[in-house]
């Protein structure tokens, strides 16, 4: 293979750009983004928050789940421009500043609720969102499975994730 002949041109894409203002993990963000950029790509590639994963880009796997104004949402089905004015929380905001795991994360660890860890940020954000909602939680087996029914995991077979949700409820004093 020959040596490179020259630096490739640094052309830009021809996409129209739009300014967005939003809050991400408590921080005010102002950026100019392509009109068709997905929120998942915006978080990952523009902000470097690569903890939000992308498993399908068609709204089925839940890997890309973030909290949008407190509610779990698919960042792959949301355009960055649609997030204008909203407050987004990603997995990077969940543990304490010193790295101490949040009880939901701790529960996943104790219960071996993750293997490859690719689905995990989406799982955690979904569970966290549900736990932070007002009102009672259905912590029966079926209730927990229902709570998890928007997130695919190909590694664990889910039982340990079900156990982790129950353990998280315990750690958080929820029932």
């Amino acid at each position, binding site marked *: 293979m020959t040596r490179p002949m020259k630096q490739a041109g640094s052309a830009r894409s021809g996409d129209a750009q739009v300014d967005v203002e939003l809050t991400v993990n408590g921080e005010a963000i102002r950026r100019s983004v392509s009109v068709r950029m997905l929120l998942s790509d915006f978080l990952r590639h523009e902000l470097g928050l*690569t903890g939000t994963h992308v498993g399908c880009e068609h709204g089925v796997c839940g890997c890309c789940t973030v909290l949008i104004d407190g509610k779990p949402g698919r960042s792959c089905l949301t355009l960055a421009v649609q997030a204008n004015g909203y407050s987004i929380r990603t997995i*990077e905001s969940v543990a304490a500043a010193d790295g101490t795991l949040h009880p939901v994360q701790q529960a996943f660890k104790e219960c071996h609720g993750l293997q490859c*860890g690719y689905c995990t*940020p989406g799982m955690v954000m979904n569970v966290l969102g549900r736990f932070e909602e007002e009102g009672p939680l259905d912590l029966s087996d079926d209730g927990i499975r229902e709570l998890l029914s928007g997130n695919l995991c190909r590694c664990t077979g889910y*039982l340990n994730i079900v156990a982790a949700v129950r353990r998280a409820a315990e750690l958080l004093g929820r029932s």
Partner: protein
Amino acid sequence: MSTRMFGARIERNIDPKLLRGEGAFVDDIPLSDALHVAFLRSPHARARINAIDTAAAKAHPGVVAVYTCDDIGALDVEMPLLIPHPSMTNPQTQRPLARGDVHYVGQTVAMVVAVDRYTAEDAAAMIEVDYAPLAVEMDMIRALQDGAPRVHASIPNNLAAHFVQSSGDPDGAFAAAEHVTRITVQVDRSTAAPMECRAVAARWEAVTGELTVWDGTQAPISVRGGLASVFGIDEDKVRVIAPDVGGGFGQKVLLFYPDELLVPMAAMQLGRPVKYIEDRRENFIGSSQERTQIHTIELAALKSGEVIGLRDFFLHDTGAFIPYGIAVAQVASTSIAGPYRIPNILVEFKAVYTPTVQVTPYRGCGRPQACFAIERAMDQLAQELGLDRFEIRRRNLIADNQFPYAREGLLFADGLKVTLDSGQYGKALAMAAAELGAESFAAAQAKALSEGRYLGLGLACYVEGTGLGPYEGGHVKIHPITGKVYVNTGLSTQGQGHDTVFAQIVADQLGVSPQDVIVVEGDTKAFDWGVATFASRAAVVSGNAIHKTAVTVRKKVLQAAANMLDVDIDSIELRDSAAWVKGSNRFVPLAAIATASNPLRYAFNKAAQAATQFAPASKHDGPPLAEGEAPGLEATDYYSPSQSTWAYGVHAAVVEVDPGLCTVKIRKYVCIHDCGNMINPMLVEGQVMGGIAQGIGGALYEHLDYQADGNLANASLMDFLVPYATEIPDVSILHLETPSPLNPLGVKGVGEAGCIAVGAVVASGVEDALRPFGALKFHQVPLSPTMIADALERAGH
């Protein structure tokens, strides 16, 4: 640490980082100024390419380069045939970019490199390809007939390979049979569907001539070797890193996927980092798949139910190419007799080209198909002889005292004779019956039936040859500054927890906490001898290599500590990251021993100062480093298994079928498995459970729906049904631990075990549940509601 870590259910070292979102998967690696790749893929299953026009794509703003087969120079060749075998005639492998013909929907035709993926995809859509579509035949049986449309012009009858193996005297057995049963079964095409799709990124440093490739692969060392040879660069100048990888299950080991060559090529040519992140649709139409086999199996039995002979003929769909040779079919053919004695075996297969994505091993690798065939046949035999399904198996299982049990004449995928090394098969079967409540099931079934509910009992046994060679290595080093232990091996991990189990192995030898053992793998700069993660081999092959190495380092530590503390070696014990004089409170920390084992010039820290407080770590005259001695506490060693070590298990379930809705619910699922000594039962259960969930997917839901024209109709997670938590029942997993006699740790592999038996269990259970409607047959998985409806209709319901 005096408690033994081997066998402990300890939490994983890697988890905090993954839980905080700090994992580093390929697309997370920050590469400044990176370019992005999109592929143009064939929309036809078979076509001639008359012309490709890339002008519009090249002119599109943001596009940096567009490649067709004419633009990739020396890479425009067929990719390697990884495992040659004489049973293949003229084996076909793929080119990075199609030249002349396309052979399946999804085959890469052109590559666009642009400033971002959005732009690259736009430009790929602007490439105009003039295709002349050709006829296709998707059905394997018809594809073998004379005159069938060909996947490759040069291969008549689409026959990729033909292979026969036999053990004992099958003809004699069938002549002596008192009863023969015969059954045809099918397992359909599926895919691994890891949550992270495949990904490759590359950076070329022109100044140093170094190529760095981040590849979500199960085989970084092999990829490194391949890249060095393809590009003609010294191996030392090529670094392949498999960082965190989001599941693999076999799909992520192939030399090569087109992108694994083309992305580094583009990075070298364009002088900027280049990235290809496969999307989900591409994973469905471009990354390896497995499973379709059609088996016709016959059992020659005595009236007692003893099976004295087996004949199996099967067709194996290899897709459009056969880069892995006959590996999948060979594993199926050598697993066909399962855990049963069956001394006389004839097994023959034909591998058939179909115009679909190539077939390479997916978790299970031919075993689910073989298990489905033999177990469904055993059920039928039991039915015909009026025997209970547990009983017929009990009468045929290899007895504990018959190990090692060789199947003379059958060669496994490692080229060695099939020899089942150890187990307690009968006990496993009895445990399954007890845990399921098989004794009282008939009563429960009758009671349910009286309430209009249809319960069935499903049962299947499996065996799994694990821990294939050739070898793996381990490097263990105690760091002189921190006293932490660094461990390297040549594998990569996709979530199995290698970092924790390998740490447990080392912790026991060196008296440290597993949290203080730092395992680095998946980086050819860290360790560059080895093979790959596949075939349930990591714990067996790397585990034992690391164990051997740790034993050597332990000896060095003991000797150095004895010298430093001026006592006999036998009076030293290792615990709490230090060497102690037994029964006293005299000790020296590991860090100090490591420091003292390195003849020093400078006391650069406390450990170095402390080391000077003790007697020298090495007792000898002459120069500081004696002849033949190496500095530090460090060793490298290798383990090469003499043969595969065979794990096994029994799965049983109670299923409920709703004959109105034609749905199947698993009410109870029991798994008894034996993978030898367990390093970490919690992680073993995780592996088994993950496998069972994939098995349930394969038993009931996951079916790649190829249309008659070769298009895949369900190339999305919306339509290809991977189970959610709502589809997975509680499972009780019980362990049996029969140590493997073949390796020092006594371990067997467990990565694939869970998925093997599930299809057979479910079909067996559904058949049993619907018995009130007649002797309905379920000989195909995934077992869909339509199949149940059809079967009921045929039975007049």
